[in-house]
């Protein structure tokens, strides 16, 4: 008889159940569910939603009608999940705070990176007593699961410095890339004198979109061979409208997004890829995919991006201000050899983040807890 795993998340589908936007976290969830299925488990996902049941990629997803948040935790969702998932043998808490206050016995918590470095988090929870209460709840959330998996070392270091007693629970399983699917182009774009800068992220402030738009305005005016491609969803319809209107008004600036299956070609056509996150970052799938396609990357030093990029080796690790973006792009713009060498090094690094290793690492952790 197959064992059953319940995965708890907040918003795989929009809580109304009518919309889904596949970002990095959603892709991670789909891949993790596929692995569990391949290992012989029966998997179901639970999230915030009005008692609906949906299916995605052959996995049932159930909406629990609780949405209250306190101190960036979801105690009602946690408890509704605990009571409703009694017939399941094991649990995965897809966000660390979801394991507060009560975790299933044989369970694993997952961190996708530090999210409390976002300035808005300080606005909401900056008061000393609120901060303490958040941390108290997090310590409970981290105590329950038998293992804690982090996509980067930044999260582990933060908690080792803050809640050192959890040291042995942590496992570092960095994000991954399918290096066979995302590979360098057969031919380089050398015949074409266009230089294409790609920003393959969600159009949200923490990803550095506003700095990048300003850098694009400055650089496209200065260099007629430059193109800027903004490739990703907005946070909502209005953002997508504003991005389109902005791109329409600026020569050689483009805005769109593409299905995942097209992304290898998009990366292959780029010359420089930007991942200029200010905060709320893990080991970005976009950075790994760009590196795997042999592209130099300019990244913010937020979250786990320093797990992927060595300064001046396979790209630049910067504070993503407009000035720093402009300067680092110009450096690569003027030095095609550096772009090539950094891209080759990026590909080499990406091979050590191959998806097969991620699957094997996860299988090991699962076998240690789910028994």
């Amino acid at each position, binding site marked *: 008889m197959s064992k059953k795993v319940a995965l708890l998340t907040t918003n795989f*589908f929009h809580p109304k159940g009518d*919309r*889904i*936007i*596949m970002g990095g976290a959603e892709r991670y969830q*789909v891949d993790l569910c596929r692995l569990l299925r391949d290992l012989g488990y029966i998997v179901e996902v639970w999230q915030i939603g009005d008692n609906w049941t*949906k299916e*995605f*990629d052959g996995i049932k997803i159930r909406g629990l009608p609780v949405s209250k948040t306190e101190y960036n935790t979801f105690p009602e969702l946690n408890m509704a999940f605990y009571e409703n998932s009694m017939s399941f043998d094991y649990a995965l808490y897809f966000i660390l705070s979801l394991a507060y206050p009560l975790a299933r016995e044989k369970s694993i918590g997952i961190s996708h990176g530090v999210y409390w470095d976002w300035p808005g988090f300080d606005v909401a929870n900056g008061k000393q007593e609120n901060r303490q209460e958040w941390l108290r709840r997090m310590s409970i959330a981290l105590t329950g699961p038998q293992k804690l998996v982090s996509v980067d070392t930044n999260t582990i270091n933060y908690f080792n410095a803050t809640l050192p007693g959890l040291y042995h629970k942590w496992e570092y399983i960095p994000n991954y890339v399918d290096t066979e699917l995302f590979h360098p182009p057969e031919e380089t774009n050398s015949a074409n004198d266009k230089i*294409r800068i*790609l920003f393959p992220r969600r159009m949200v402030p923490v990803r550095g979109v506003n700095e990048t738009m300003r850098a694009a305005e400055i650089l496209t005016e200065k260099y007629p061979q430059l*193109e800027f*491609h903004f*490739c990703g969803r907005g946070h909502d*319809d*209005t953002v*997508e*409208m504003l991005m*389109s*209107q902005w791109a*329409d008004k600026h020569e050689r600036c*483009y*805005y*769109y*997004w*593409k*299905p*995942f*299956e*097209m992304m290898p070609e*998009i990366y292959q*056509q*780029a010359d420089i890829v930007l991942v200029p996150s200010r905060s709320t970052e893990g080991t970005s799938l976009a950075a790994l995919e760009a590196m795997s396609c042999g592209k130099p990357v300019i990244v913010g030093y937020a979250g786990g991006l320093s797990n992927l990029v060595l300064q001046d080796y396979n790209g630049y690790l910067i504070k993503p201000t407009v000035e720093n973006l402009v300067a680092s792009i110009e450096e690569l713009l003027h030095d095609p050899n550096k772009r090539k060498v950094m891209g080759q090094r990026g590909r080499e690094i990406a091979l050590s983040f191959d998806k097969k290793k991620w699957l094997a690492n996860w299988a090991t952790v699962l076998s240690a807890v789910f028994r």
Partner: protein
Amino acid sequence: MPKLTAMMIVRNEAERYLQGCLDSLVKYTDSIVVLDDASEDNTPEICLTYHNVKLFRHRESTFLDNEAQLRHKLWHYTQNDRPEWILAIDADEFLEEEGIKEIPYLLKQKHFNAVSFRLFDCWEREDYYRTDGLWNPWLRGFSIYMVRYLPQLSSAWPSLKFHCGRFPVAYRQLPHYESSSRIKHLGWANTVYNRAKYERALLQDPACQYMSKEHYDSILWPPEKVKLEKWIERSSI
């Protein structure tokens, strides 16, 4: 590559956009199922000049009396074409070139059984679209245009006379991939027809159950009240 069948209902389209629409569809679909709702012009003859059009003709027009029944028949004819994916499009709607490039990837992907696009209503001319009120293409959401054919799903249609949808109800509830590519709709591009369209809409929906009266009235707004933006062709990397 999975087989993509387009389906559409046509009526008196000869002097409008049918030829351009079929020229576009033959570039990216394998087969086009057309149900002619008793055209009085040479719409059927135009259809028959395309080798991959499968034409079905009705002698009496029923679109205004029972759209659901007509849509259901088209669905039935399309099923018989053994499609793997189905595109529901009108004879005055055009998927932009960037979207046509995406089609092979969308057909091969495994995550989604439906694909949606934003519809842009061109107004007064073919290179400007309308953005005021409910006409704003960005804020009124995505519409499902393409679905994977799933024989296990019910093919039931709501028994509405008007605005009854392009697909069976079960297909409209599928999680769908929202594409950034746009559908250009030329149905309002020639304002000569707008008065007749307005009158027809109110005749069919006198209680304004499907759309607000204000929205219907906005069809006849003078040009100074209408907000337009220029349609700019997109390109990707």
